[in-house]
């Protein structure tokens, strides 16, 4: 019971810190970038042509990891940098509850932001087309109605697939960053190196090494629910030759990897020594 209470207290503390932090502002700006791009592109091309590209190559590969890593890296390192971790670690609390509570809040924040970003891409890509209806009176209402119609016209699974893949990406990358923070001081830098150098390399070379990256499973997930995304990927030579998983297979494997990394992180924080300079 005390474990849950501590986790809840830590979760609230982290949520409050995040809401008042500059990190959140940076993340909001990051989340807005694909929406702005989709808005401009939406004026020239149909949403069906824009959303898969922006969704797959900007939201899932760049924005979702960046937001999640920024938020996730605050789980442990922020308390360490602020040197307030002492007040928590010298109380009769389970350190794992500290980690899980803060991770939960960070995951919620990053998931919301990434979801807004991906949903925003769909909205921004469709709204200019809806606006072209040019109803002078009740433009917003009718424009919104048109937009809903266009979203409905999108290929089956594109909107839901992108949003669901974004949520999965946010959950995974937040844990990666938070978990690295348990073991290393510079979690943000390490997370960026991992995501954009190591994983970026593994995910984009032909062969089964792709399976070592989160991106591989996100692609599997997205292409399984949305055929057009699969056709886009099939046109990229480097990504051919590897059989993607089905959505349930991808989710199961990601869930297993998540559980293992979560367990390692929770055990790690119980045994790690965190030294603060006076």
């Amino acid at each position, binding site marked *: 019971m005390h474990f849950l209470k501590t986790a809840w207290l830590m979760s609230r503390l982290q949520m409050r810190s995040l809401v008042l932090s500059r990190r959140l502002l940076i993340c909001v700006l990051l989340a807005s970038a694909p929406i702005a791009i989709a808005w401009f592109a939406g004026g020239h091309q149909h949403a069906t042509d824009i959303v898969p590209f922006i969704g797959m190559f900007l939201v899932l590969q760049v924005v979702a990891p960046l937001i999640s890593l920024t938020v996730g890296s605050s789980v442990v390192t922020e308390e360490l940098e602020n040197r307030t971790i002492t007040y928590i670690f010298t109380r009769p609390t389970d350190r794992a509850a500290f980690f899980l509570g803060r991770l939960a809040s960070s995951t919620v924040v990053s998931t919301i932001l990434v979801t807004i970003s991906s949903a925003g891409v769909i909205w921004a890509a469709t709204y200019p087309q809806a606006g072209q209806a040019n109803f002078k009176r009740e433009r917003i209402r009718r424009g919104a109605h048109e937009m809903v119609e266009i979203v409905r016209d999108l290929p089956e699974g594109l909107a839901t697939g992108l949003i669901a893949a974004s949520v999965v990406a946010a959950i995974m990358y937040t844990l990666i960053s938070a978990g690295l923070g348990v073991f290393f001081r510079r979690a943000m830098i390490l997370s960026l190196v991992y995501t954009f150098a190591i994983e970026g390399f593994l995910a984009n070379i032909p062969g089964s090494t792709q399976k070592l990256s989160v991106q591989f499973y996100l692609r599997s997930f997205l292409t399984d629910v949305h055929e057009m995304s699969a056709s886009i990927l099939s046109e990229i030579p480097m990504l051919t030759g590897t059989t993607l998983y089905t959505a349930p297979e991808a989710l199961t494997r990601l869930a297993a990897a998540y559980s293992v990394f979560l367990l390692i992180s929770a055990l790690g924080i*119980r045994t790690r020594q965190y030294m603060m*300079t006076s």
Partner: protein
Amino acid sequence: MKPIIKATGLGRWYGEVIGLNDLNVEILPGITGLVGPNGAGKSTFMKLLVGEMRPSSGSLEVLGHTPFANQELYRQLGFCPQQDALYDHMTGLQFVTHCMRLANLNHTDAKAMATRALQRVHLENAMNRPVSGYSKGMRQRTKLAQAFAHTPKLIIADEPLTGLDPVARHQVLDLYRELGDSGTSLIISSHVLHEVQSLTPRIVLIHRGRLLAQGPVEDVRQLLSRHPRKVHLRAREPRALARALLELPHVHSATLEEATGDLHIETRDIRAFHSDLPALASRTRSGIESLESSDASLDAVFDYLVG
């Protein structure tokens, strides 16, 4: 009496840097001052005591427990860290209440305890303001409040008087005495000997990661009295004064600095020196302009003891 802290061959290294080396010490219940110059190893010892780090060698028991991540110990322990770190978005009351809730208290009890603690450190008028607006002294007192609010058996405070103005310092020292009188054990680190001496007769002296001396302050001061104490004087007639001083049995040497006219005296009995000086100055009409005892600091004491 059973010791509250027992360190045996305690060592802690930071890579190749030695923080503590083969420290053997037993600390009994009551108030104990942990003293030493900056970099002596006090903070390392404190961090080991509160379980922030594990020892590299040896063993350590605090209230009968191995400290690192020991929840049973933390129920009986309060820690006031040296670093000026608080959750700046919280008020003082919210911060201490939050710390109390981590000790598994419900919100009502935690808030009541936090309020009482903040009143004891004279922050009742400021406790509903964000700590970001607190002065350094107020922040220090807030840290102190979270350390004793849950009435622990042992409070460990790392440089708790830093940043306090004289009035607040006096109030905090009084609070420590009250806590000590009520049966709470305290370990207070400071690099200023007289602050600790005003609080407790018992000190533990650490230098370069080793135990240098332990026991009542007077006993440790006795060690100092074996070495001549240095006094710097400036007078209108330093030569006459020097001649007269050298006739005193406890004056070991008198050196006149020609360029500045400063007189450097070494005496084996500083109290007798201070007692004899006014009459001597009057008799020789030497007109003392300034007097400074340069080796009254703890660093100087350590210099003597380390040799």
